[in-house]
């Protein structure tokens, strides 16, 4: 059972291409109203760089590598934690008028509401 992987040459390019395509398609569906949390959310996702920093620091041999690795982890952790904090905070603010925690799509909520108003 060997899980050691080696990603090289075209396999790496395939991986990059598929990831880029997935990112393009997924992000293309996000409505403009959510573009700020989306930006901070995708900002949070590249905070995964902290994992690379941990790897580099654990394997550091010289003092120079330790210092650079320390900053890699420090910065990466800041990126991840900060990105999460602001995204979560912003998303909690978005509420609908009909039901504060509505599970229906907002279009249907709105049209029902509009009909009620006319009836009166």
């Amino acid at each position: 059972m060997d899980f050691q992987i080696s990603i090289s040459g075209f396999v790496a390019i395939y991986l990059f291409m598929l990831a880029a395509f997935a990112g393009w398609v997924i992000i293309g569906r996000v409505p403009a109203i959510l573009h700020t949390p989306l930006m901070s959310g995708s900002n949070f996702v590249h905070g995964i760089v902290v994992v690379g920093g941990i790897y580099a620091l654990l394997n550091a041999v010289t003092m120079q590598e330790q210092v650079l690795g320390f900053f890699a982890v420090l910065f990466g952790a800041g990126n991840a934690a900060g990105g999460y904090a602001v995204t979560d905070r912003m998303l909690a603010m978005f509420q609908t008028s009909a039901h504060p925690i509505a599970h229906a799509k907002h279009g249907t909520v709105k049209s029902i509401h509009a009909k009620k108003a006319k009836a009166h």
Partner: protein
Amino acid sequence: MDSLHHFLTMLPQSVIGAADLAAAFLFLYGLHRMSSPVTAPSGIFLAGAGMIVAVLASFLYGFDVSAAARPNLSVNLGLVVIALAIGSSLAWWAGRTVAMTAMPQMVAIYNGLGGGAAGAIAAVELFHNKTPGMTTLIVTLCGALIGAVSMSGSLIAWAKLDGMIKQPLRFKGQQLFNALVLIATLAFGGFLVMATQSSATPVLSIPSSIYLFFALALALGVFMTLPIGGADMPVVISIFNAFTGLAVGLEGFVLQNPALMIAGMVVGAAGLLLTLLMAKAMNRSVANVIFTNFGDIKKQKPGAIKGSLKPMAPGDAGIAMRYAKSVIIVPGYGLAVAQGQGKLYEFVKLLQAGGVDVKFAVHPVAGRMPGQMDVLLAEAGVPYDLIFQLDDINEQFATTDVALVIGANDVVNPAARSDKSSPIFGMPILNTYQAKKVFVVKRGEGKGYAGIVNALFYGDNCDMVYGDAQAVLIKMIEAVRGLGLPAVAGKSK
């Protein structure tokens, strides 16, 4: 016994692999759930869970360090814990306390941190691995360059958005200068590739070339961002977000970590898409934003506009809206500067109680980053089903009684449609001029960010309400309350 030993040495690798796979899936699924305000909070939560799983699993790398690094392991583990604790607690605290108006700066800082982390990893790899393969070395250097540019550029963007750097710094031959810095950086990169591949003693020692390479890359980020004006910052933040993603993806390849490769490239593509959307909303190409100086376009001839500015008292405008059937509000950054969002929603609730149909129309470039105005309105409690984007609401202005423009200017300037000589010609605008009546709340008679006269303000259907947005809204609320009209049944909430 042998197979058990083999299993035990492979176990950490397998756990890390499984954790990173889970993280990559949770990032994609989490971002996917961000396509609706209803599912978005759970989306970011799932992505956060992925991050925690990946970070915890990465401690298992400690079981598999090289022989040379083994004596340092306990110290290095301690450093990892300290760096994680300091970095995440400071950033968390900053993220929880920052004002929503300061969000663009905050995102710029976090983004710069990510770019810096990618650059630092590249530096460790360059110093650590004395005999890398050609491909690995080139990819490491590309990631280092992009990460370093993103870091220093984001810091300049932060300083600009925070008002620390007020004026764009421009000088003659700046683009040539920047091109030379880029060429010099690439030359050092090329030198590093050749020096490590050949056995001859290089002219310049490899460590000092690495330092110079990073110094030049950081300088490039600074010089690239300094000349760009404040109004173009949404595009710039978006570009650097894509840059950091790309740098993380490339360093993921160097470290042979597919989670970094996937997450980085997803963000790279996302950042590119957002950059193009923003540039389109400003009717400019991305190259135009980076390379041309917006303020340099020759000023409009005076006297080209007929009509006059007609001032109106805030109370009168408020009462006129109370008797209207429909009102569309166009909020701009001036509203956020005056911290008037809360009062605006209070006024909107008064109008709604009186049976007025109120909607918000948000331009893509309202605010200092894409979608910032939506967040500011959401913060004030405005339900998102009242908030409409440009394409969804633009046709409704013609059948609307009142368009209320607060702290916005260029995004409602009809010159973008009619005047070919205008610097904003071709930019999509909100059709407020088609409304039966337009009220514009403005601090004074000054021009907008682009410094262009706005013909809308001189139109026959437009009245100007001068003053600070919050103060004006308080007067409007008082005037409508003063009418003492009863709430219309069924409409009040």
